[in-house]
C-alpha cells in the first residue's frame, strides 16, 4: 500500500513539532527549518503530480483502513484531479508565506509551527474522504489560523480572530449535526452508519438517501432540505457566501499579511472544495430544489462584494472583498452546473466548461490573491504598517519594479487575457451563460465593478503626483524579487498555457459533471 498522502500530511505536522520545540532564540534555524519542511511538501506535491494518471478521472493514491469500525469511521484518503489541484496550491502558497514572514521576530518558533500545522491541516482536508477523518482536519485547520491572527495580528485582532473562529465553528457544528443525521439515516441494525463521502454520493444518486432520511427521522417532506441546509451553512461560511461573509474583511485585514496569504490563498478554497466534494454530490436533489435562491446568492456575492471593495480605504480590505468576489464566480459555476439543464444543447459540455473554469479559478485566484497580499506585506514593511488607499500616490516613480510586478498581479486579478486570471473567468462564463443566462448577465456587473476598483487602486497608489512622504521609498531588494518571481512567472505561464492544469483537471471534471 502506498502511503504518499499520509507522509505528505505527516511531514508538516512533525515539522511543526520540531520547530515549536526549538525555542525563541534560534530564529534563523526556525525559519530555515520551516522553509525546508514546506519545500518538502512542495516537492511531495510535485511528485504526486508526476505520478498522477491524467487519463483517469477517479481517485488515486488511495489509502483506506478501518479506524473505528463500530462507528463506520475509516482512515480514507485519496486524490483526484480536484484534490491534486488543491494540494498543489497549498504546497505552492505555503513556502511563499513562510518566506514572506522572514522578518517575523516575535516568538517565531510558535508562529512557524502554527503555519506548518495549518499546512498539515489543509493537506488533510483536501485528501480525506471519510467524514470523521475530514472533519478532524477541517477543525484542525482552524486552530492555527485563529492563533496566528490572535497573537500576531493588527490592532483589532482580538475581535477579528474571535469572530472568525465563532463563525466557522457555527458552520462546523451545523455541518456536524447534518452528517450525524446522515449517519443515523444510513445505519442498519447490522452495519454502522455511513461517513464515507463516496458511498453517500452513490446513495444520493440512486435516490435512496432522502428516503432513508425521511424514514428514520420523520419530517418526511423537508428533512432532506434541513440536513442540506446544515451542511450548506458550514461551507457557505467558509467560502464565504454573502450574507455569511462578515467575518472575512476583519480577519483578513487584521491578520499579518503572510497569514492572509494563506487564508485567502488556500483556506478560502476549503469552502469551495467542500461544495464540490461533499455538498453537491451528496445533496443533488436539494441543490436543484433551491437552485434559484443559490444562484441569487452567488450573484449577490459577486456584485455586492465588488461594490464593497470599491468603497474600502484599506488595501487589504479591498483585496479581501475582491477575494469574495472571485470566489463568487466559482460558486456561480458550481450552482449552474448543478442545475438541471433544460433547453440547452450539449449540457454536459457546458457544465464541464463551467466546472473547469471554477477549478482553474480556485487555483489562479489562490495564486493571485496570495501574491497581492505578499505585495501589500512588502509595502507595509517599507511604510511601517501603512496601507491605506489614500496614504500613497505616484509611487511608481520611486519603486518602478514593485509597481510593475504588483501591477501584473493586479491585472491578473482583473482578468486580463494572457494572465492566469482570465482563463478561469472565461471558462466560467462560457459554461454558465447557456446554463443560467440571467445569472451570468448580472455577474458581468461584477466584472465591471472589479475593473473599476482595481484600476482606481492602481491610479491612487501608483499613478498621479508623487506623495512626498514616500520619496525615499526603497524598491524591491534582490531577495524580494526572487521571492515574488515564481508567482509572477506562474501567472504568465498559466495564463498562456492553462493546459498544464487542465490536463489533469478535465477527466475529474467530466466525472463530476456527470452526476
Amino acid at each position, binding site marked *: 500500500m502506498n502511503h504518499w498522502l499520509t507522509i505528505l500530511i505527516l511531514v508538516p505536522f512533525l515539522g511543526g513539532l520540531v520547530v515549536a520545540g526549538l525555542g525563541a532564540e534560534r530564529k534563523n534555524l526556525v525559519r530555515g527549518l520551516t522553509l525546508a519542511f514546506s519545500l518538502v511538501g512542495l516537492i511531495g506535491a510535485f511528485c504526486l503530480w508526476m505520478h498522477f494518471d491524467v487519463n483517469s478521472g477517479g481517485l488515486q493514491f488511495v489509502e483506506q483502513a478501518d479506524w*473505528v469500525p*463500530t462507528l463506520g469511521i475509516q482512515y480514507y484518503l485519496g486524490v483526484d484531479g480536484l484534490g491534486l489541484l488543491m494540494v498543489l496550491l497549498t504546497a505552492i502558497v505555503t513556502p511563499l508565506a513562510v518566506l514572506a514572514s522572514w522578518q517575523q521576530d516575535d516568538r517565531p518558533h510558535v508562529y512557524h509551527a502554527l503555519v506548518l500545522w495549518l499546512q498539515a491541516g489543509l493537506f488533510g482536508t483536501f485528501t480525506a474522504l471519510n467524514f470523521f477523518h475530514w472533519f478532524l482536519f477541517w*477543525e484542525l485547520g482552524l486552530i492555527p489560523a485563529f492563533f496566528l491572527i490572535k497573537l500576531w495580528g493588527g490592532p483589532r485582532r482580538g475581535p477579528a480572530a474571535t469572530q472568525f473562529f465563532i463563525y466557522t*465553528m457555527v458552520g462546523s*457544528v451545523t455541518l456536524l*449535526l447534518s452528517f450525524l443525521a446522515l449517519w443515523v439515516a444510513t445505519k442498519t441494525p447490522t452495519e454502522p*452508519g455511513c461517513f464515507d463521502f463516496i458511498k453517500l454520493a452513490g446513495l444520493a444518486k440512486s435516490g435512496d438517501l432522502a428516503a432513508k432520511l425521511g424514514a428514520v427521522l420523520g419530517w418526511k417532506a423537508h428533512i432532506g432540505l434541513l440536513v442540506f441546509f446544515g451542511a450548506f451553512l458550514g461551507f457557505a461560511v467558509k467560502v464565504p457566501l454573502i450574507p455569511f461573509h462578515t467575518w472575512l474583511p476583519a480577519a483578513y485585514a487584521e491578520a499579518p499579511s503572510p497569514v492572509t496569504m494563506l487564508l485567502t490563498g488556500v483556506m478560502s478554497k476549503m469552502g469551495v472544495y467542500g461544495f464540490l466534494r461533499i455538498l453537491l454530490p451528496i445533496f443533488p436533489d436539494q441543490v436543484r430544489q433551491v437552485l434559484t435562491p443559490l444562484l441569487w446568492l452567488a450573484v449577490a456575492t459577486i456584485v455586492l462584494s465588488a461594490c464593497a471593495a470599491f468603497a474600502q480605504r484599506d488595501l487589504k480590505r479591498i483585496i479581501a472583498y475582491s477575494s469574495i468576489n472571485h470566489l463568487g464566480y466559482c460558486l456561480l459555476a458550481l450552482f449552474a452546473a448543478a442545475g438541471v439543464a433544460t433547453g440547452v444543447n450539449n449540457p454536459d459540455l457546458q457544465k464541464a466548461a463551467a466546472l473547469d473554469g471554477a477549478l482553474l479559478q480556485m487555483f489562479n485566484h489562490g495564486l493571485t490573491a496570495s501574491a497581492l497580499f505578499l505585495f501589500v506585506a512588502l509595502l507595509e514593511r517599507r511604510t511601517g504598517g501603512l496601507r491605506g488607499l489614500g496614504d500613497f500616490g505616484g509611487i511608481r516613480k520611486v519603486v518602478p519594479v514593485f509597481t510593475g510586478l504588483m501591477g501584473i498581479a493586479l491585472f491578473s486579478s482583473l482578468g486580463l487575457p494572457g494572465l492566469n486570471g482570465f482563463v478561469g473567468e472565461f471558462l466560467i462564463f462560457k459554461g454558465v451563460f447557456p446554463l443560467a443566462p440571467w445569472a451570468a448577465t448580472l455577474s458581468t456587473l461584477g466584472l465591471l465593478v472589479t475593473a473599476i476598483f482595481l484600476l482606481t487602486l492602481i491610479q491612487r497608489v501608483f499613478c498621479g503626483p508623487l506623495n512626498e512622504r514616500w520619496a525615499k521609498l526603497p524598491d524591491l531588494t534582490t531577495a524580494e524579487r526572487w521571492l515574488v518571481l515564481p508567482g509572477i512567472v506562474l501567472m504568465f505561464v498559466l495564463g498562456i498555457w492553462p493546459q498544464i492544469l487542465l490536463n489533469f483537471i478535465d477527466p475529474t471534471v467530466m466525472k463530476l459533471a456527470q452526476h
Partner: protein
Amino acid sequence: MLAWTIYITFIGVLVLMLLPRDNARAARIVALLTAVAGCVVAFAGAIQQTNPGEVTQITRLDWIPAIGAHYYLAADGISLVLVVLTGLAAVAGILFSWNIEQRTKEFFAFYLVLIGGVYGVFLSFDVLLLFVFYELTIIPKYFLIARWGSTRKEYGAMKLAIYSFVGSHLVLIGLIAAWVVARAQLGHATLDLTELAKVSFPPAFQYWVFPVMFIGFAILAGLWPFHTWAPTGHVAAPTAGSMLLAGVVMKLGAYGCLRVAMLMFPEGVRDWQWAIALLAVIGIVYGAGVALVQRDFKFVIGYSSVSHMGFVLLGLATLNTLGLDGAVLQMFSHGIIAGLLFAVVGRMVYDRTHTRDFNDLETMHLGRRLPYAAVTFVIAGMASMGLPGFSGFVAELQVLMGAWLVFPKLTLLAGVGILIGVAYTLRAIHKGFYSDAPPAHAGHDHPLEPISVPERFGAVLLIGAALVIGLFPDLLMNWIEPCFKSPLFERLLKGGAL
C-alpha cells in the same frame, strides 16, 4: 487482581498515617508511589480482561448472609474504563499537589481514602458494598476542601457534603425499598447486582423508586437543577480536590445512575426518559451559558463541568447503545479534560498569581510569562470544546448520534450548548492568557515561578490520554461496547430502536 487497586490505596493511607508529622517530602513520595502502583494495577488488570462484555468476578465472600450482602467485587468493560480513569486522575492529582506544604501527610491521607473509595465503587457488584464505598468518599471530600481549599472553603465543603449525603440517602431509600420487594419476589434476600438486575419490579413501584434513586445519584453527577453544589465546591476545593471532584467523583454519580438505578428499573427509566433528557440538555445549555459570564476563572471551569456532565446524562437517557457508549466514553474523556483544566487554573495560574479574577489576569499577560500553562490550557480548551482529535469529540459525537434517534429537537439544543461552549472557552483563553490589557500597576511584572517538573509530567499525562483516546477511541470502545450487548444490559435496551 483489580481489587488490589483498592487495597494498595488503603495500605498507602496506613503508611502515610505512620509517617512522622512534618515530613512533607516523605508524604508526597509515599502518596505518589501508592497512586502509581494503583494505576499500574488498574491498567494491568484491565488489559488482562479477555472478555469485557461479561461481568468478570474478582472476589466474592459472604458478608452479611442475613440480608444477602456479599463482598462481591467484579468488573466489566464499563468498570475497566472508569478504573483506568481513576488511576490516571489519581496520579495526575498528586503531581499537581506537589507544592502543598501545610499538613501534607493528612492531605494525602484524605486524598488516598477518597481514591480508594472511588476504586471500590467502580468495582463493586453488590449494591450494599457499592453504597458503602460511595458514602465513604463523602468525608475525605469534606476535609480536603474545608482544610486546604480557598474561596469560601468551609461553606463550599459543607454544601458539597450535605448535597452528597442527601443524594446518597435518597439512594438508600430506594435501595431498601427495592431490597424488600426483591426479597418478596425471589424468596431470598439478595443485594447482588446481577441478581437484582433480573428481578421484575412492579411498574407502579418502579415509577416512584426510579426517580428517587436516579436523582440521588444524579445529584452527585450534577444534574440540573441539583447541580448547585458543583461550582461552589469546585471553586473552593484545592487543585487536586477540584481535579478529582470534577474528574472522578461526578462520574461516581453517573456510574451509579447507570449501574444501579437504570439497570434495576428499566421500565422506570422509560417512564422518565424524556424528563431526564430535558434536564440534561438544560444543564448543557445553562452550564455553558453561565460559564460565559463568570468573572472567576475557576467558576468558568466549574460550570463547564456541569455542562459536560449534561452530555453524559443525555447519553444515558437515550437508552440506545450509541448514546450509552457515548455517555461512558464522555465520562472518561471529561474526567481527563476537567482534570487538566482545573490543573492549569488552580495549580499553574492561581498558585502563582493568587488571583482568579479575569480583570486581574487580563493585565498579567500570562500568555508570555507562563507559555507552558497557556499552551496546556489552549489544548485543554480545544479538547473541552469537542475538537476532533481529542476524546471529547468522539464521545459527544456518539451521544449526539444516539440522541438524534430519540430526541431530535433536544439534540439541536445540545448543539447550541456546544457553540456556547466554544464561546466561553475562547473568552477564557483570551482573558486568561492572551489579553493585552495594560497592567494596572507596575508590580505585575515580577517574574512568576516557572512550571515545575511534576506539573509538566501531569499535564503531559493527561493531554496524552485525551489525544490517544481521541485518535484511537477503539481502545476504550472495545471495552464499552460489548457490555451493552451483554445479557446484563439486555433488559434496559430491549424495545430501544438501536
